[in-house]
């Protein structure tokens, strides 16, 4: 087990790029005035990102994924348990793919 010395500078650059993304937004917000509008934008971002994660999967138009997403929504609304709903969605997708 060894490490190619030629790979090390690349690893350092990759790690720096990755951490810059993770830390950059947090750091930058130090200098952003704390207004109600910024607060509203930060509050809305998680929901908007979740839409950004789910939308491409739904847009592919596969029956299994769309049915599973509907199931997730129904389970959250009826049980109120988001964890159970998320896992139900995964199981539904695996089962539907097995059948289809």
């Amino acid at each position: 087990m060894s490490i190619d010395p030629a790979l090390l500078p690349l690893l350092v650059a990759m790690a720096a790029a990755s951490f810059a993304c993770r830390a950059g937004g947090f750091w930058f917000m130090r200098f952003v005035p704390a207004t109600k509008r910024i607060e509203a934008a930060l509050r809305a971002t998680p929901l908007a990102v979740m839409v950004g994660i789910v939308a491409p999967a739904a847009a592919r138009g596969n029956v299994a994924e769309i049915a599973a997403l509907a199931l997730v929504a129904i389970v959250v609304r009826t049980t109120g348990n988001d964890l159970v709903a998320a896992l139900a969605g995964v199981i539904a997708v695996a089962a539907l793919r097995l059948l289809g």
Partner: protein
Amino acid sequence: MSFRPPVTAAPPQGATTAFSRSGFLRGFKRAQPLAVGTFAYGIAFGLLAREAGLAPLEAVLMSATVYSGSAQLAAVSQLGPEARAAGIGFGAIVATILLLNARYVLYGATLRPWLGALPAWKSYPSLFVLGDGNWILAMRAWDEGERDAAFVIGSGAAMFTPWLAGTLTGSFAGTLLADPARFGLDFLLVSFSAAMGVAMFRSRSDLWTVGVALAAALGINAVAPGGWTIVGAGLAGGLAAWLRASPGASRAFRR
């Protein structure tokens, strides 16, 4: 530098953000279902890294420092034997990583109100282990009233370890879970996002956020699927909320 407390419901003067072992453990436990998927994807990455000619130690080192599934997969595809012979495209690989991790800029920004009052030696390590899954869990937990900032690094640590373990497993002998999609694990993050999103959806202003984000996501996805969909949706939804809110100072977070 002022020491304004970071929470909206004005806490007593001089209050600091909690960062406790129990908060860490709550995050750690809450992330366990997602950790299973992380382990499976770690195996998939380890396999690809081996195919690209990376030694197990190199693959694990990459997982521990870059810590981003999509970015590592893209980087490794540019590290194969032929690519090495032709000279590694340093700039191209770094650009790929910046693009694929651009969404973390947004995630980090949303954590400012929560982690902003922590000393840097607590907040930046929390950000180092930030991933999609644990960020979504953290945002949901905050929404439910969790205020202990150690929740963030606790849930992150719960994902970081199986990522390394999976990478090592895959790069040694990973054929067991070579195709995470067979078990629906590729759907894990989508399913979690949908569940948390539905659970967090409350008011008419949320409808506005979702509508604008959805339009942006579908539009970008149709033109350029991949890295920019999440970033575009997040920015569009945030901008929509910004426009709808009334101007004025907020005491919500410390600068």
